[in-house]
């Protein structure tokens, strides 16, 4: 009898620890993947590889910030990938025409605009975020294609600052960290210690209760989706600095992984629960996993299957660990 109680209590204790610190098992998973990689190809784990992994995880983690923030309120931003692509394309095509600084400002304008439209639709017209952002994403892609025909002959150039951020290294680590570290600290602090961050959790936990408490939710949603657009735009600028070749679908491939990173990081898609630290680790896990699959020469089809299976397993685990009712 006593033994069964012990056995029953252990998973519960583990569950409690994990509930309090959901990032711990994620970090363990990350290390396990890295160890597996090292086992498969000894010597791969070196400074250069770590730097590269971080460099490619950063845009993913930034785009996943859009998902984390919106998912906390029970929403999602499926236009983030398109927004990032637009900003990247605009900045690369405008830099030869108007110079770097102006191009950066002009590139963030469509990002903020799309965010505002999303916020207007979600916050004021009460459209489901999934639909709203899919729709604006579609419109954005169309606009980008039309825009492309007007700038087809201008050539492209990436502002020096983002090229430095995207490709340079300092002490072996990618320069992108100069952008990302302050960004991540701002998001982490903002979610924990600001009224806006608290309201994001509150809106996701119970929108009616926030209304009852005097919160005008459209204000929160409008600000949130605009912020998400801005973050996506910024991600695009950094990403084009990393890739150095603008295209009409540049950041689109980051879109679904960004949702996956947030989900793996433990953010509940129903809202009210999650953290950005989990998302960052989620982005690292996905990046390492990508390397692993390339290394194993897994065909594209099987890669996607595995990718899906991981999201599924992580979701199932989280549901079991964190929700006991």
């Amino acid at each position, binding site marked *: 009898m006593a033994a069964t109680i012990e056995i029953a209590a252990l998973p519960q204790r583990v569950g409690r620890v994990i509930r309090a610190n959901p990032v711990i098992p994620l970090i363990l998973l990350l290390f396990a993947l890295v160890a597996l990689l090292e086992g498969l190809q000894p010597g791969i784990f070196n400074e250069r590889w770590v730097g590269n992994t971080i460099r490619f995880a950063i845009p993913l983690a930034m785009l996943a910030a859009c998902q984390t923030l919106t998912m906390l309120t029970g929403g999602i931003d499926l236009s983030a990938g398109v927004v990032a692509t637009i900003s990247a394309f605009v900045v690369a095509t405008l830099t030869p025409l108007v110079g770097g600084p102006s191009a950066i400002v002009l590139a963030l304008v469509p990002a903020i605009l799309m965010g505002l439209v999303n916020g207007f639709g979600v916050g004021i017209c009460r459209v489901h975020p*999934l639909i709203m952002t899919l*729709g604006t994403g579609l419109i954005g892609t169309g606009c980008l294609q039309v825009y492309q025909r007007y700038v087809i002959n201008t050539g492209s150039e990436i502002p020096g600052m983002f090229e430095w951020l995207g490709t340079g290294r300092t002490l072996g680590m990618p320069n992108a960290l100069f952008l990302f570290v302050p960004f991540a600290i701002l998001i982490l602090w903002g979610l924990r210690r600001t009224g806006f961050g608290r309201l994001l959790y509150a809106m996701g936990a119970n929108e009616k209760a926030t209304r009852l408490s005097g919160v005008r939710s459209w204000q929160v949603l409008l600000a949130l989706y605009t912020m998400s657009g801005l973050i996506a735009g910024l991600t695009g600028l950094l990403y084009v600095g990393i890739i150095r070749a603008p295209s009409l679908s540049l950041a689109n491939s980051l879109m679904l992984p960004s949702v996956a990173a947030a989900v793996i990081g433990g953010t509940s898609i129903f809202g009210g629960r999650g953290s950005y630290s989990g998302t960052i680790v989620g982005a690292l896990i996905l990046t390492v996993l990508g390397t692993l699959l390339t290394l194993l020469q897994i065909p594209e089809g099987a890669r996607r299957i595995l990718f899906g299976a991981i999201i599924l397993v992580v979701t199932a685990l989280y549901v079991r660990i964190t929700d006991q009712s």
Partner: protein
Amino acid sequence: MTGVLNRYGWSLGLLAILAGLLIATRIIQPNFGVSGLDSLARAALPFAFCTAGMAIVVIAGGIDLSIASVMAVAGVIAALLMQQMGDASAGLVVLVVLAAGIGMGVINGALIVLTRGPDIVVTLAMLFVWEGVALLILNAPGGAATPWMRELVVGGLTLPGVPAAMTMWVPRAFVVLVALVVIIWLPLRRSKLGLSIYAIGSDQHAAFRSGVAVGRTRIAAYGFAGLFAALGGLSITLSTGIGEPIPGPYLLASVAAVVLGGVALTGGKGGLLGPIIAVFILRTLRLDLTLLSVDPNVTTIIEGTIMVAVVMAGGLLAMRGRH
């Protein structure tokens, strides 16, 4: 009478819009006729099938983000098998494809029930999985479609004993669509399972308390979505003649048509009639814009804007109604 209006008011409104659009098409292109209707119906066919599938899941309170990938799997299976097995066994191939569709839907549903994860996350994961499966089956467009099966969805309707002039203008694709939807949906809607699907979408907890087997009903709803997705995939293969492993733009289009068709994304409300009319509206609109020789990219923008505007207006109206 008012009851009919209440119940079908939305669909009747959509029908009026569709009629208006078709008249507009005729005005833009005076020789728009039998062949125009035929290609319109054929283009709409996969959209209509996947919208039907999506609508059932949405009524059940879920959403199937993997529907386009399921269609791709069904399409490549059909193309591959039809090429390998020859004309005679094409009927068998269809059955295999439909069974595979139901199977994929059931797997989606069962995973949602077993993992207890939200539909949106589980089907997002399955989107990758089915996409991968399609690529493993056929890693580049290929295969073939059995010619006599293609005939089924191409051209006008011919009925023995009825003058061709009377039936010509009814596209076969449209007849196939209506027949299949009627055969599958009407009995379902009237059955206890159908009621249960509405029940779990409307209030899952209440449904559980009143003894509805929530898990099994959800799996069944996804199974039906899989069936319709397989029909959609099959119709793509039949109309293009090859299997395409990369999923088409069906996810967004089907969600849009479902919303435009009066099915609430919160579940429990609506039917299949509205969403299918909505598919034809969106397709006719695209046709009109193309006929007006609008740049296809601008067409995409206009289409997206209309879609977004419709859902935003719907949202505002719903809010007005609450006060």
